């Protein structure tokens, strides 16, 4: 559960050489095209290119790929199944519609997986605040908050055990089970808020967001490579749409 969220200094992979804001721009381009297209060919071409990038993001072993993508694959499978089972179409047409949805979802979300796998979160915050003028309060505040996410899993377990020690369990009663779950979640939330308050105080004490213009120790540079990366994303979309039109599959969702 925590693996897709895990956050730490990422080890550098070839894709890390591309600035996070260039990667985000690429994602915006690809996402726009995938949202417009309604066929199967376009997302298939995009998906093939994304899969070709997996090794550059350090995802070579199938186990690593699975660890990063299982929630995504699960939801894509779910969407495909819902479309096949409950869609208005029958037989092969139903399967094609389902597959289109599934492939689209994967092609839409995979760039996010590539970004997370290849990008150190601190570098992402640096790039966003320096190039896109995202407020430092938001950028580094979110970064600090994300650091606390893995702690929540440990805390959840200890709250659950503490309740059992107090004589509280649900037995086989689903209503009691739901109430217990809600209570545990509430205690977790209270704890998380208290910790967040402490973190905010500590950041205040270190002069965060005190009105002085912030400097950046690491910096974030845009290189020609970043321009080429965005150009490649645009070219990929052009190729995908052309292929779709030539095969006669193209039908945008707005038509």
């Amino acid at each position, binding site marked *: 559960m925590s693996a897709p969220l895990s*956050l*730490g*200094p990422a080890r550098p992979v070839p894709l890390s050489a591309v600035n996070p804001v260039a990667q985000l721009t690429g994602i915006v381009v690809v996402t726009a095209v995938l949202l417009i297209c309604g066929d199967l060919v376009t997302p298939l071409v995009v998906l093939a290119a994304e899969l070709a990038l997996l090794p550059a993001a350090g995802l070579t072993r199938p186990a690593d790929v699975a660890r990063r993508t299982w929630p995504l694959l699960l939801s894509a499978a779910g969407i495909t199944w819902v479309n096949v089972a409950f869609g208005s179409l029958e037989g092969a047409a139903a399967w094609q519609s389902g597959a289109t949805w599934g492939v689209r979802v994967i092609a839409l979300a995979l760039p996010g997986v590539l970004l997370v796998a290849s990008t*150190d*979160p*601190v570098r992402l915050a640096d790039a966003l605040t320096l190039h896109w003028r995202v407020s430092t309060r938001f950028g*580094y505040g979110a*970064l*600090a908050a994300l*650091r*606390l996410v*893995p*702690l929540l899993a440990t*805390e959840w377990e*200890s*709250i659950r*055990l*503490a*309740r*059992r*020690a*107090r*004589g*509280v*369990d649900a*037995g086989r009663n689903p209503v009691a089970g739901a109430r217990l779950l809600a*209570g545990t979640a509430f*205690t977790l939330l*209270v*704890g998380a808020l208290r*910790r*967040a308050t*402490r*973190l905010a*105080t*500590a*950041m*205040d*004490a*270190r*002069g*965060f*967001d*005190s009105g*002085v*213009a*912030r*400097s*950046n*120790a*690491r*910096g974030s540079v845009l290189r020609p490579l970043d321009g080429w990366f965005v150009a490649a994303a645009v070219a990929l979309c052009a190729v995908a749409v052309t292929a779709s039109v030539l095969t006669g599959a193209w039908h945008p969702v707005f038509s």
Partner: protein
Amino acid sequence: MSAGGGPATVRLAGWGFRHASRRAWAVRDVDLVVLPGERVLLTGASGAGKSTLLRALGGLLEPESGDVAGELTVDGAVPDRRRQRVGMVFQDPDSQLVMTRAGDDVAFGLENTGTPPELIWPAVDTALDAVGFPLGRDRATAALSGGQKQRLVLAGALAPRPGLLLLDEPTAQLDPEGAALVRAAVVRAVAGRSATLVVVDHDVEAWLPLVDRVVELLPGGGAVGHPAGWRPAPLRLPERQPHPPGEQLLAGVGAGYTHRGSDRPAVAPTDVVLRAGRTLAVTGPNGTGKSTLALLLAGLRAPTVGEVVAGPALIAGLRYPDRPPARWRAGELARRIGTVFQQPEHQFLTGRVRDELSLGPLRSGAGAAEAHAAAEALLDRLGLAPLADANPFTLSGGQQRRLSVATALATRPRVLVLDEPTFGQDRETWAELVALLAEQQDDERALCLVTHDAAVVAALADDVLTLGRPVGVG
């Protein structure tokens, strides 16, 4: 700006603070002067307002959050205007680190003051060296021990070269090894007297050799300075009655635990016996699985190797007596084995102290009248009666600790398992807790204490299990 300026002067004259919505003053009538480069330990019972005073010095008390009396200045100005002259370290390292790499985190404070990048990295290296952080800039902060994290936090506070360094119980959440690391780092950091130091801590003995003088905040208001050579009164220890080993209540037989997906056991297979009227202390360095062993004995986790076996006195009345404690119903468990966790807050389930105490008995089958009588008795016994209607989450750390022990006692279990019950407690609370636990032992309960606190071991333990090698002490 931040660099330069030398050590700061602190002056308080008749200073006091009252939190909005409270009737009593958190601190009042404090007169205190700390000279440049001086090192002062600020102590006092929990609830005497030490942390409030320290926050005020750091300029972190919002004016609208309460009423202020008297005057408080840092270098002759209100602390709010001296924020960049102050470095602060709090208790919990996890809620102070911001970045994912050690060096980036130390740089954070320098970035906030707008220091040019080319000056940041030399300052980061100086600060890391000043605290003796051995692991380099690129180390992931998440993978550090508590002591090393806190060292890093200290380096982050020192990097902007503050004139006033404020430490708020910086070692309260660390094991003795980590605490020693942090104190050593503080000694290195202030060796040149380039910063004035004010430390708030309960552990007076540990800081005495490192400070010039001790100032004690009094609970009723005011502060007294203790003369050089002053020592705190020795800890009050309860009178111990010797107990012959009673019947066996609970035992771990080669009990060990390995987390799923891990190839190294969290607890190696361990033999351990808890007997009526005896106290077993489980000690050992961090990472040997003391707390996990406590969870196995408490019936909260099932061992992955070996077993945990309950004795006849504990099994009596169970619906399925053949099942191990980890599979008992929660109500049955709470009546037989009481557990006190390291974080008292995790255990609280209600909005009132009184309800908190009657909840366990109600859940484990006692009638309402019986449960309330038990709650009232415990309230009186533990001095919590004046707080009966307070919300458990609003109590002070010491009061919360007493309440969490009381909730475990409310169901009258024969076995008590406690994880670091004396962590971060002031001397008064410490003595109360030890007396309370000694009483449980006299009542023929079996106690299992997981602890780093050598004084608790000396005061209570009949047997000591240093994980891996059991040693009897009489």
